[in-house]
């Protein structure tokens, strides 16, 4: 819209109402509305509609209880992420002695923490256990890779392949969309003999913290890396068989 006599488009009117037009554009629109009754009424109606929509804020107001729970959740999550001791000033020598002992224990616990599997493996194990326990079907139930792979198109910022031939007594069950390390990932569900296997397919940088293999709480982890992807398998099946499946998946990427 460059001339006073041109009616502004609906997009321009919306932009004006939202304060998104440049000063020059806003001035042109205002000058036009000053002389065009129809557009002036459109602006008035638009302002009223915007104000009414804004009032929809009250439809889903969080109660004090909800806010308290959410805030407590932040505090709890903070404590989980930062388990170190909190220091204060002006303590007595007895307190400092006690604190020294605590620090030694914390340092020992931290050393133990380094030896334990990384937090990403904990997240993946939780996700695997959730698929075992909730009994709900995955979003895609199919043994056919030609059904599973296309389902993910548009849902993930990467693509991946499923092999035609799987290791002996291994079957694709289905797939789901999940979230790992804050990033979208594919969850492929397999059966090896009767053991459930979860394979997480993610972009390579999302899975960088994951070690190549390990165990946690009786479950095996096997990770494979391709130029673009990180694949991590979790299962209670024999680690050798899990490794064969992971290698078969990595070979076709």
């Amino acid at each position, binding site marked *: 819209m460059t001339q006073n006599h041109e009616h502004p488009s609906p997009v321009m009117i919306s932009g004006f109402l*939202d304060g998104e037009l440049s000063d020059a554009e806003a001035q042109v629109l205002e000058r036009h509305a000053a002389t065009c009754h129809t557009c002036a*009424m459109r602006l008035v109606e638009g302002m009223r509609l915007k104000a009414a929509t804004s009032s929809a804020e009250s439809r889903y107001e969080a109660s004090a209880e909800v806010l308290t729970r*959410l805030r407590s959740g932040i505090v709890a999550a903070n404590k989980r992420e930062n388990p170190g001791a909190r220091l204060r000033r002006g303590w007595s020598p007895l307190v400092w002695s006690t604190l020294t002992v605590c620090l030694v224990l914390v340092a020992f616990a931290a050393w133990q923490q380094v030896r334990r599997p990384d937090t990403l493996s904990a997240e993946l194990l939780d996700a695997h256990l959730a698929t075992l326990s909730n009994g709900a079907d995955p979003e895609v139930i199919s043994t056919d890779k030609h059904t599973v792979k296309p389902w993910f198109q548009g849902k993930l910022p990467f693509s991946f392949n499923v092999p035609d031939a799987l290791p002996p007594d291994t079957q694709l069950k289905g797939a789901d969309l999940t979230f790992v390390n804050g990033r979208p990932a594919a969850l492929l569900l397999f059966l090896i003999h009767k053991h459930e296997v979860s394979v997480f397919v993610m972009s390579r940088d999302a899975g960088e913290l994951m070690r190549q293999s390990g165990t946690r709480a009786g479950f095996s982890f096997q990770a494979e890396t391709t130029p673009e992807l990180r694949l991590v398998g979790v299962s209670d099946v024999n680690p050798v068989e899990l490794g064969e499946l992971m290698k078969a998946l990595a070979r076709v990427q």
Partner: protein
Amino acid sequence: MVFKRNRSAEFEQEAVPLLPALYRHACWLTRDKAEAEDIVQEALTKALRGFDSFQSGSNFKAWIFRILRNVFLTSRTGVAATQTIYLEEHLDGGELTDAGHSPEEELLRLDDSAALHAALDALSPPLRDVLLLCDVEGMRYREIAAVMQLPIGTVMSRISRARATLRMSLNGHFGEAA
């Protein structure tokens, strides 16, 4: 340790004032208050985990809303919602036509909140989400573009079409009653 404590405090300082807005938007996304609370809780946990990668001074609100939407989109409700693919040109249902009425004839009665809520509910999610982020959450277009991962032009177009669709719905509601 001190650095991590300061970052935790910084995260709380940024996140707590946004809790009502996050919960509200989650309710619009899920239409279920219990699920909305779960999604907000999960988003906060993921945001805290990723907070080290967040640059102080950049737009925390857009960043955490983006995380909230990601959590929703990968939830069962969100995945089911995304099964329907909306073509950009048909987001308004393809029913917007100029009936040739003057603005006075089309002056909306906006005092009926139930009718307004019903009209908002009837909007397609791609239109409704951008409109709510703009009018309810007060976000700028570039913030909405960052949250929704859309070009700014698409944000502008969707907001305009959302308002036009609302107008048609509310006109239709009161036109039948008159």
